[in-house]
């Protein structure tokens, strides 16, 4: 795309924002549009002409300034870019300076007098901001940056601005709260909070007291990462090398935990292993094993996290095991190595990167987990729950919460750094493109028995947990062992009446509709933006690529609770006011799930030879055309994976959205949390069952529609190239 085309498009958007679209947000919803071009829906031009927004005249001036070189077609990229930058800065700064109660920056009073109150930016404002971004990119491209390609320039500048606004700014807002005490900046308070004994105490080593919450979190995360990786490894080895014919069962087991709402596994564990749980009671009655409350605390949380994390480890490791070229192992055994020696010296070293990835993922997921520690934690506190209660508990301490959030972030980044250290600069290439025929080595016998003894009991355990979830919604009260069948819980949540048409009387319908709507809107945006960013990062080189990649990955490391509170702190006031809307939920999901889309896209792109891009470029295609005609069709599996992942995660997220839901836009998970809080376990389980069914249908539907997502080298069949 040429720079001039982009410049014209940007101008068109700017004009649209100036003349047609309502400049301010519509408080009264779509109804307010009827007042156009006056009232709440007035476009900027009307506001300028009636004099109520006189300080916004520079917007017109700046747009006009950019028009001259673009319409004339003369190349003066510097002017266009700086005009765009000025426009962007001006709109945002004036929104900060003049807020809901008129002038906010007192020192501007001599200049501005007493301007009237101004609401948040609306569609008109958004269009003008987009135009500014377009002008900046067009100008930069015209000056030869980004290879002179305006499309790439626009992608980089645009996504960079979005990431800054929705990832970086909220983070800065909340983290700066750590250094504030009683409204003043106090570095001493920050140091005291970071070094607080509640975080670092080692009392548990010497006495019966609990340890610092950082140690608890670390211990839990390490245990969860190791155990889920080991279990996943046992399954992966059995599935890929053990000659087991239980693939459908394996596959079902890997699907289920992904689509399970939070809390439910914990509830099922209580029903099974609580002091009056089914298993506990049976053991007590038959074997006189005393009943205890061991499930509340580290063991229970660990069990719940392993249940949800092991299947993901299995998927990752199975792919890695299958990708090992059998020729290497064959060579080793031809040279006389015994089976176990082959495994120890060839197979295992080649698995190391995948194992490291699993450990890291397990560790980070455990750090971010909020639901399981909340229900099963007992006295065992971790950082994520501590942060939540520092904000929403009986004492409101945002400073303490922010300090704890910094500690949690540090742990996450530490894990990423360690992984890089461990893998080092060694290479683990196994897919070379040369023939890798040959029979994969079967597992050594001892190892096979060991894997089996881990995998099969775990399988039975998973089945029991899901059995409980399945039954729980349809009996009177599974927690008390009252197993009489009933539709009561489903009816409470999902009753439908016929009364001049369909009336959704059940208490859960509202939140279910909102959840599906928000997930369905955010998933395609996440997948699209994620794949585009992946393509930018993997295939293009431009200044600031490292920064962009860091910004993309940043939101993966921020725990949900922190994200939720930071969004409400950052986006509650003009110029950008999003609280209480569905938009804030969508944005939150998009930027939280983005890293997975980007990672998946980069991994998939690594498997597609760059020579295809180059061939397209040689034949004269621009970046946009290459992306559309060559890269995207080859990326189909990655797109499916990103779509399914972001949909499912939008439906099961809880910690990030618990502060963002509003009266009109409530979400299923928040509703379920409320039910658990009120002790209505059965309704919570019944609702979760419904959610599982919905997500299963959607994931299978996406797979059916776009084709099954296969990760691996053989996933891109030749047929796709033609299409």
């Amino acid at each position, binding site marked *: 795309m040429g720079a001039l085309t982009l410049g014209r498009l940007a101008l068109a958007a700017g004009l649209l924002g100036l003349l047609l679209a309502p400049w301010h947000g519509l408080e009264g919803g779509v109804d307010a549009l009827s007042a156009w071009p006056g009232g709440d829906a007035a476009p900027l031009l009307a506001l300028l002409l009636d004099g109520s927004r006189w300080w916004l005249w520079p917007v017109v001036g700046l747009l006009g300034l950019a028009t001259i070189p673009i319409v004339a077609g003369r190349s003066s990229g510097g002017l266009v870019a700086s005009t765009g930058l000025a426009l962007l800065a001006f709109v945002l700064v004036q929104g900060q300076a003049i807020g809901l109660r008129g002038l906010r920056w007192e020192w501007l009073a001599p200049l501005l007098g007493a301007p009237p109150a101004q609401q948040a930016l609306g569609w008109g404002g958004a269009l003008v901001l987009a135009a500014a971004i377009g002008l900046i990119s067009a100008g930069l491209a015209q000056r030869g940056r980004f290879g002179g390609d305006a499309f790439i320039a626009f992608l980089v500048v645009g996504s960079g601005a979005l990431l800054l606004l929705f990832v970086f700014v909220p983070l800065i807002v909340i983290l700066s709260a750590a250094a504030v005490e009683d409204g003043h900046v106090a570095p001493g308070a920050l140091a005291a909070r970071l070094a607080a004994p509640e975080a670092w105490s080692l009392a548990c080593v010497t006495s019966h007291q609990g340890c610092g919450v950082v140690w608890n979190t670390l211990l839990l995360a390490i245990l969860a990462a190791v155990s889920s990786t080991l279990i996943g490894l046992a399954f992966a080895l059995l599935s890929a090398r053990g000659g087991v014919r239980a693939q459908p069962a394996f596959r079902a087991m890997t699907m289920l935990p992904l689509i399970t709402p939070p809390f439910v596994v914990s509830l099922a564990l209580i029903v099974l292993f609580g002091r009056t749980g089914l298993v506990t009671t049976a053991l007590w009655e038959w074997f006189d094993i005393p009943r205890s409350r061991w499930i509340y605390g580290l063991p229970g949380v660990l069990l719940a996290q392993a249940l949800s994390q092991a299947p993901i480890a299995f998927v990752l490791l199975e792919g890695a095991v299958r990708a090992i070229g059998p020729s290497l192992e064959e060579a080793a055994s031809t040279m006389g190595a015994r089976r176990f020696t082959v495994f120890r010296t060839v197979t295992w070293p080649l698995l190391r990167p995948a194992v490291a990835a699993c450990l890291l993922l397990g560790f980070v997921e455990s750090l971010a987990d909020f639901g399981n520690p909340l229900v099963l934690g007992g006295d065992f506190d971790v950082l994520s729950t501590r942060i939540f209660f520092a904000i929403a508990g009986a004492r409101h301490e945002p400073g303490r919460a922010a300090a704890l959030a910094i500690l949690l972030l540090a742990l996450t980044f530490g894990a990423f750094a360690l992984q890089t250290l461990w893998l080092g600069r060694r290479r683990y290439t196994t897919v070379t493109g040369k023939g890798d025929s040959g029979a994969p080595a079967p597992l050594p016998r001892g190892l096979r028995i060991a894997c089996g003894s881990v995998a099969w009991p775990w399988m039975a355990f998973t089945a029991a947990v899901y059995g409980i979830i399945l039954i729980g919604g349809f009996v009177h009260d599974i927690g008390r062992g009252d197993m009489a069948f009933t539709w009561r819980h489903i009816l409470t949540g999902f009753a439908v009446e016929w009364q001049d048409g369909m009336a959704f009387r059940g208490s859960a319908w509202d939140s279910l509709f909102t959840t599906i709507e928000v997930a369905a809107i955010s998933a395609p945006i996440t997948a699209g933006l994620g794949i585009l960013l992946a393509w930018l990062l993997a295939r293009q080189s431009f200044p600031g690529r490292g920064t962009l990649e860091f910004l993309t990955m940043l939101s993966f490391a921020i725990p949900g609770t922190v994200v939720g509170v930071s969004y409400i702190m950052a986006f509650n006031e003009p110029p950008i006011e999003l609280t209480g809307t569905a938009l804030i939920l969508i944005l939150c999901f998009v930027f939280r799930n983005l890293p997975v889309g980007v990672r998946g896209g980069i991994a998939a792109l690594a498997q597609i030879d760059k020579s295809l891009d180059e061939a397209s470029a040689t034949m004269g295609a621009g970046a946009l055309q290459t992306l559309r005609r060559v890269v995207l069709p080859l990326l189909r599996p990655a797109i499916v994976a990103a779509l399914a992942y972001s949909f499912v995660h939008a439906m099961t997220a809880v910690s990030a959205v618990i502060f963002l839901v509003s009266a009109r836009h409530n979400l299923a998970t928040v509703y379920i949390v409320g039910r658990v809080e009120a*002790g209505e376990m059965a309704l919570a389980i019944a609702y979760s069952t419904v959610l599982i069914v919905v997500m299963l249908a959607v994931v299978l539907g996406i797979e059916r529609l776009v084709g099954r997502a296969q990760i691996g080298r053989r996933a891109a069949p030749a047929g796709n190239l033609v299409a």
Partner: protein
Amino acid sequence: MASRRSAVFAFAAGILAAVLPGAARAQGNLTVYCSVQEEWCRPMMAAFERATGVRVAMTRKSSGETLTQIRAEASNPRGDVWWGGTGDPHMQAGQENLTEEYRSPRLPELQPWAVRQAEQANFRTVGIYAGALGYSYNTRELERRRITAPRCWSDLAKPEFRGEVQVADPNTSGTAYTMLATLVQVMGEEPAFTYLRALHRNVNQYTRSGAAPARAAATGETLVGITFLHDAVTQKIAGAPVNIVAPCEGTGYEIGSMSIIRGARNMENARRFYDWALSPEAQAIAGTANSFQLPSNRASPIPPQAPRFEDVRLIDYDFARWGSAEERTRLLTRWEREVRAGAR
């Protein structure tokens, strides 16, 4: 096929209805933050809509979460009325100037405890129900262990209840803080902390949610759960084998409250809701929604299952003093240092 199509159609219509804000709104809107159980929130809002034609948007969140939200939104409030939830956060919101002063014409109809609380809060909040603190025990577990049934606070500190008492953490739960303040008022501060240290050895878990111990006692996960009595009644009515105890030394209570949020966008309707929610008709909904607190209007019918205040030795709970931020922080810090940190 036709049914499938109509189902798809209905689904799409549902989504549309969720996306587009309603068309006809002759009587305007009201946004309510509701902090009692969902089961009670819903019929209340539906009844108000029926009575007035005002469209109500309601969010249910615990009182702590709601206070956080109101604070965060203070410069640009989203909600109009905060209905329900224990009184302390409401008092706190009043102190922080987050809520609006309003004297309802129905004030003279209210119980004396409700009027007194409203006066203490400078009419920034008003009581809508009250519930006494106490505990419930699982009768089956009690028989199994052959322990005599507890009747008083002091019984719970006896060695036979070792590891069998559950109570919420006062740092996260208003219920547990009420217990802390109650014991200090019943026994005096020093003896109260001696008692709490003894009780600490018997506590198996400090839960985060205030009502959770009632549920745990109902399922037998713990023998004794300290909660508000009406939470235990809800479990008993659902068929759980529990007995409910109002401690013999006397006990404190909470006043579930209601406040109008400062800067509410629908002030007119907020006042309308406020007056309506204090009427006997509105307060009668509680009993039908499995909520067995005592209503604040003297003319409201008391649900027959509700624990009556006549049968409970109530102390003269000083909401202004024990609800204030300083006293609260002092007690909590002391509890954290002297009780929670102790060995079990």
